[in-house]
């Protein structure tokens, strides 16, 4: 593999590509953690948001509003620079990045899922209640399966936002694809000019994001209500 | 019928067929409509009646045969389709008023854009036809603020503003609540009395009986029967027509 790349691109560019690709794994780890973590927290707040208990609903509303309003960049600065400075503690970049992206993801995901749940006709809830089923049971067995259909395409689509979002984490020195791209572009080496490095970086991001957005689009077609 | 493409007839259709992909919607249609004539086309849904009148102003293009409107033959590459269309007014089942324009602007737009009329003249013409359809007081409202019957009357006025020689009606009352059907039919009857050439696709048999010079019955993409209203209703020639009238009357 390495030899083939060297043959095709020359030693320098092959090496550059390998460095970038290996840095990409950190982008992927961060994306996956944020997506799964954010998904779980998002799920919790989705349920709170539609719960029959008033103050839980308000709590969820506040949470979703707050983390949709704070720019991701500010979240990164707050967790990566602000909290360490304020509490005189050491927060590693990966932790700050993970927390920020998880909070960011959870807020947007619960917004999407709440929308999906609300698009299920009210009659479904009433029908469940008429059968004597409780809130949890109606949600789990009647409403959620229908909402899943509506929610899946935008959920997959949001993975693209998460991956693109991780590129901001380099700003607090998280060692991902973007940070290595910037390092190489700043190296002043021949063949590592910004107009070469950044398109390559872009291409790698594209390779991660494009399949997901196409998948989301095809899901939208197959899953749209008849 | 000859290859008469001069001013003799408003519409001359000969041997026209229309396909949607593999599906043949119209079979070998022959139809001549003279100026001043009122023709009603009826038939069960899916019989091709709407497709037929949509072919007359090329909202659909036919594949075989000839369609001559106002002396101009329509084909896929008709360059002057605008010249043909400006003499044909069209009224749609779902009104298709422009929701973002006021009633008056709906009537003014095409006069300004196509006829390049000055604003005042366009407004005057618009008001004239809004009065004809008895709705001048609604001029400043948006279509969404009007009832269905009012909207359809505005749509008729809008079409009349270009002073067409032929009016096409594509099921103009089918989307209306029953209590609003009559106000639209009355407007159409009024229009018929001015001598307008009208081709109407409709299920309103009372209107057909009162206004039509001829009634055309279509089924499965074919013209089954053409007759004067008296004969059509009292002594239809075809079994299929009888069944249809039995269902509808």
């Amino acid at each position: 593999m390495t030899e083939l790349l060297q043959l095709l691109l020359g030693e320098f560019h092959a090496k550059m590509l390998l460095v970038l690709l290996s840095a990409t794994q950190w982008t992927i780890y961060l994306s996956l953690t944020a997506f799964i973590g954010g998904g779980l927290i998002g799920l919790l707040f989705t349920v709170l948001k539609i719960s029959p208990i008033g103050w839980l609903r308000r709590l969820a509303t506040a949470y979703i509003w707050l983390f949709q309003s704070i720019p991701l960049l500010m979240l990164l600065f707050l967790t990566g620079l602000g909290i360490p400075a304020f509490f005189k503690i050491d927060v590693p970049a990966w932790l700050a990045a993970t927390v920020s992206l998880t909070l960011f993801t959870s807020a947007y995901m619960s917004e999407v899922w709440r929308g999906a749940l609300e698009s299920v006709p009210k009659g479904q809830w009433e029908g469940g209640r008429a059968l004597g089923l409780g809130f949890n049971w109606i949600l789990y067995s009647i409403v959620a399966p229908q909402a899943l259909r509506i929610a899946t395409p935008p959920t997959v689509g949001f993975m693209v936002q998460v991956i693109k979002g991780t590129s901001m984490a380099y700003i607090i020195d998280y060692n991902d694809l973007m940070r290595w791209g910037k390092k190489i572009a700043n190296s002043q080496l021949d063949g590592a000019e910004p107009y070469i490095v950044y398109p390559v970086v872009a291409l790698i991001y594209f390779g991660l994001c494009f399949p997901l957005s196409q998948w989301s689009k095809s899901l939208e077609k197959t899953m749209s209500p008849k | 019928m000859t290859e008469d493409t001069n001013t003799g007839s408003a519409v001359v259709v000969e041997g026209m067929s229309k396909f949607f992909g593999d599906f043949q919607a119209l079979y070998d249609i022959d139809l001549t409509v003279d100026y001043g004539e009122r023709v009603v086309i009826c038939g069960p849904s899916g019989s091709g009646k709407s497709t037929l009148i949509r072919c007359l102003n090329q909202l659909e293009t036919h594949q075989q045969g000839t369609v001559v409107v106002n002396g101009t033959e329509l084909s896929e590459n008709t360059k002057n389709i605008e010249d043909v269309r400006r003499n044909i007014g069209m009224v749609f089942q779902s009104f298709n008023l422009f929701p973002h324009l006021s009633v008056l602007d709906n009537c003014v737009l095409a006069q300004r854009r196509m006829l390049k009329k000055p604003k005042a003249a366009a407004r005057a013409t618009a008001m004239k036809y809004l009065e004809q359809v008895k709705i001048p007081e609604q001029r400043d409202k948006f279509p969404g603020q009007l009832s269905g019957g009012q909207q359809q009357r505005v749509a008729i006025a809008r079409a009349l503003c270009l002073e067409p020689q032929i009016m096409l009606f594509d099921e103009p009352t089918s989307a209306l609540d029953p209590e609003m059907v009559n106000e639209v039919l009355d407007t159409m009857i009024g229009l018929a009395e001015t001598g307008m050439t009208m081709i109407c696709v409709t299920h309103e048999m009372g209107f057909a009986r009162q206004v039509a010079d001829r009634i055309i019955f279509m089924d499965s993409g074919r013209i089954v029967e053409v007759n004067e209203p008296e004969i059509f209703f009292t002594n239809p020639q075809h079994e299929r027509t009888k069944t249809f009238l039995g269902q509808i009357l």
Partner: protein
Amino acid sequence: MFDFRFYEIWREPDFIDRLINGVWVSVELSTAGGVFGLIMGLTLAAAQSSVSPSVLRYASISYIEGIRNTPFIVQLFFVTFGLPLIFNYRWPFEASALLAIVLNFSAYFAEVLRAGIESVHRGQIEAAQSLCLTRRQTFFDIVLPQAFANVWPSLTSQFVFLFLTTGLISEIGVEDLTWSGRYIADRNFRDFEVFIVLTLLYVLIVFGYKAIFSLVQRFAFRWRVAR
């Protein structure tokens, strides 16, 4: 327990000036980016209509997918550090920032507008045709106003979402709001307080933008709510 020291920001007139200037630069660049992005996005969306040549359609789709599937920061760095080398001509970083913002916003707007154009009922176009409007007139007089009205809420949230990423232009030295915050935090070491204030300012700007968008909605799309 908590030792908040917001006065470390207020007490320095220089810091206040930087913040005010930062708000102004952020608003200026994202507003200009929004307007030009909308124009370019409209062009991209129109290029995808069924009547345009397939080369144009393909180019538009590729551009939109290319932008939407790569991070803004990469686009920004390419525009700022790559393009000037290619053209062998340096221009101010503000111009690079604006260019990157326009290129970025336009792709997202195009996607929203395309959906809006597709949402206009077919009967509207038929009515325009039967009234002899030309294609151009039909697009500008009939389709576009309705398309805008149909997707205005999506356009609003898309713009807000994009606006919240523009802080990245501080990375190339443009003195926007984020840059001002980092300038202050570098000097008073009160990062937490500074970024809380910055967040509040961003939220306030978003409120402002949302107010303007809904004002436009109320007046330009009056016909939608009128009933």
